[in-house]
């Protein structure tokens, strides 16, 4: 590792530590992760339990759009309240 890379790493690590404690970044990341995990669960249920993983593209697109849409609505709306 060059000195420049080490410096960049140290700066990034310092900013990350500060943001985690002071900026409520961690809490916001946790909330975002909760919704992204929910989206992952929905895709898993649709793909494997409802067997849409094995279906032609148009059927899969309908449910991908639904999952993306509702995740964006719920998480996007939540982020608006954070601004």
């Amino acid at each position, binding site marked *: 590792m060059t000195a420049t890379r080490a410096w960049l790493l140290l700066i990034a690590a310092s900013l990350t530590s500060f943001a985690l404690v002071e900026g*409520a970044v961690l*809490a*916001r990341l946790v*909330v975002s992760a*909760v*919704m992204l995990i*929910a989206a992952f*669960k*929905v895709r898993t*249920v*649709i793909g*494997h*339990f*409802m*067997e849409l*993983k*094995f*279906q*032609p*593209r148009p*059927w899969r697109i*309908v*449910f991908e759009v*639904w999952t993306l*849409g*509702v995740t964006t*609505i*719920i998480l*996007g*709306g*939540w982020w*608006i*309240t*954070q601004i």
Partner: protein
Amino acid sequence: VTQAAVKAARLPGDPGVWIFIIADCCAFALFFLLFTIGRIGNPDLYERSRLLLDPTTGLLNTLILLTSSWFMVRAVEGARAGERSAVTRNLALSMAVGAGFGVSKIFEYSHKIGLGITMLTNEFFTYYFIFTGIHFLHFLIGLAVLAVCLAKARQDPLDARYVTWIEASGCYWHMVDLLWIMLFPMLYLLRAV
């Protein structure tokens, strides 16, 4: 998944149930939008109200529905293989585990009403009772459909017609599951920072 496997695939159940599932999912997407708009308008009220919900109960309900869905998948696989005992056993397990959701929901509603919280308390709880109530209605219909599947599995031949029936029922049951997967974090987990 290979292209050949996709081409050979057949939509589980019949197209009618899928049209219904898509329409229902769209209705719930509208519910999520209404709730989100309400939350943007009054985040403090939504947060105070959310704190009155018990996320552990919500988690328990999620685990119950996921496990019930898994037994349903096994029941459908049993029907395709023509194994009657696997169908009846897994359907019964799916219903037994799934019934836990109903018991939990009744306790949850009773507890809220006992605290004086109703759908008239505020906007958050109006949405809470309407959305989870409509979802609960879907759940009850699903349980009834599974009961019919179980009765049919005991007396009817496990032919292609039965497989179509149980596949369609399974997809409906999984939809109840996936709607809850979104309702749970939206109502119980999205906290103010």
